[in-house]
């Protein structure tokens, strides 16, 4: 069975926020099939390794199958907090985009299933 490497943005959406020096992420699958992939592939360890070249910090993760979501907290990401951070993006608003760059390995069938399944949310 063929395996494909995809960025999370193909199967997920995300928002980041700040509390003091920690950035936090909500990562959301569009449907159950997508959630199974996220829950299997996007572990705390993998997220920590993804951010390590830029934001080396411990990561905590919580799965929330009831809303097809994963919650992550990345410690020490904000240079001491929003009012001390020297970056243009001092609040880490764009950091969710950096999470969506993360790549995962899935089978072509799994990807096809996640992309074919309808979204749970109503978009019409």
């Amino acid at each position: 069975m063929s395996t494909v490497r995809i960025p999370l943005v193909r199967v997920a959406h995300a928002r980041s926020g700040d509390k003091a020096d920690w950035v936090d992420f909500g990562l959301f699958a569009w449907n159950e099939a997508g959630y199974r992939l996220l829950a299997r592939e996007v572990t705390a360890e993998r997220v920590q390794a993804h951010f390590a070249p830029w934001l080396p910090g411990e990561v905590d993760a919580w799965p929330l199958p009831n809303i097809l979501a994963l919650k992550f907290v990345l410690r020490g990401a904000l240079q001491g907090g929003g009012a001390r951070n020297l970056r243009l993006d001092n609040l880490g608003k764009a950091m969710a985009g950096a999470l969506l760059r993360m790549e995962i390995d899935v089978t072509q069938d799994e990807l096809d299933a996640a992309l074919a399944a309808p979204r749970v949310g109503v978009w019409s």
Partner: protein
Amino acid sequence: MKIKTIMKSIRIGAGLGFYGDNWEPVAASIERGGVQFIASDHLAELTLAILQKDRQRDPSLGYARDVVPMLMKLWPLMRERGVRFVCNAGGLNPQGAAKAVLAAFQAKGWKARVAVVSGDDVLPCLLDQTAPVEAFAHLFSSAPVAGVRDRLVFGNAYLGARPIVAALDAGADIVITGRVADAALFLGPLVHSLGWTLDGATDARDLDRLAQGLTVGHLLECSGQGSGGNFGSQGAWQAIPDLAHIGYPIAEVWEDGSALITKAPGTGGRVNFDTVRQQLLYEVHNPHAYFSPDVVLDMGGIQLLDEGEDRVRLTGARGGAPTDTLKVVAGFRDGYKAEVTWGFSWPDAWDKAQAAQATIRTLLKDKRIPHEELYVEYPGLNSAHGALAPLPKPDALNQSNEIWTRLVLRTSDKAAADGFGRLFPWMGLSGPAYTCGFTGLHNTSELLGIWPTLIPRADVEAGVQVELLGDGA
């Protein structure tokens, strides 16, 4: 004595999501959303740092000043429909905010009963050197507060819904608080109107209702983020219509705690399963223990049922008894920064930017300018995603139309920060060619570190006051 009317359900609308947010969408919620309350959150974590600078300059300030023009626009619409308003715009000076609002109302001949909630300022406790060494340790790192004590500039506890309920019970039309838990601005009106048990709530039914109310508050406290704004995605955000006329979220909440998230008809944005759950997890750490002064929320059983047409049904929030501590966020002075943004154009734009940066590093060394850090990023290339942003190779960067460099000096020496911008202008004539823009000649600002900690609840609540000013219409 007032007799409280117990309603089957009430509707509450989101006001602002931060100091400086747009209040025009709130008008649609009042005029077409059928709300009885608007709750408005003016205080992000670092807003108190801004307000502290205002208060330093003028002791009558220190509150979120946008509440005055906001109410000048919205109060006539609210008064006409009996809508009541709760906000934390008081910041570090809730009395000052109330006085400013009442003065502006008086000039128009308007009357209103304005309640002021105070008692969240706990800076004196943090400054007390006789406090035990472990008191007010950093909530994340456990570092002792002694290391920053002499640099603290504000310290405020997050109060809960109780004083807001008291103010509404006393008949306030407008409630102005300082620091309260953002969601408490919404939970207060729900407890007041729906007759929920807040004090000493211990049984599951009471705590679960409070948890539902807290969730409602959390979904509404960031204005447009609860109705399709800032919807992070690729290829989906484009299907969120008419953000220019976004409707802020509105909740209808029933006595049993069940709730419907929606928005005013005819407004832009989108309320659906996806937009609502992005906000549900926003700035949450452990979703099974989301602490507030009134209830500890477990999101693990929450169900969001998307009914279509901008209606999402919220059920299943579970509540636990609150702890005997309150969260405090304090701020401390942590040096200065000065920043410069500087552009070079094709050809060799990247190499020229590097050469110019090397010159600045040489000058900092030659002149022995004291600093802790020179932070460099390249807007348009890596300022959003740092080392995770794939950069083109130097050859390709040299073919870029332009390269922008942002250089930020961090220093504990204010004079060094003040002089940073003056290191640059001479290079317009004597540096690399085709500089295409420079900003930041005078650009010093003070940095503030954030100090989250806990305080015993009893130490704070004994000093909380609700004061009623003004008179009814």
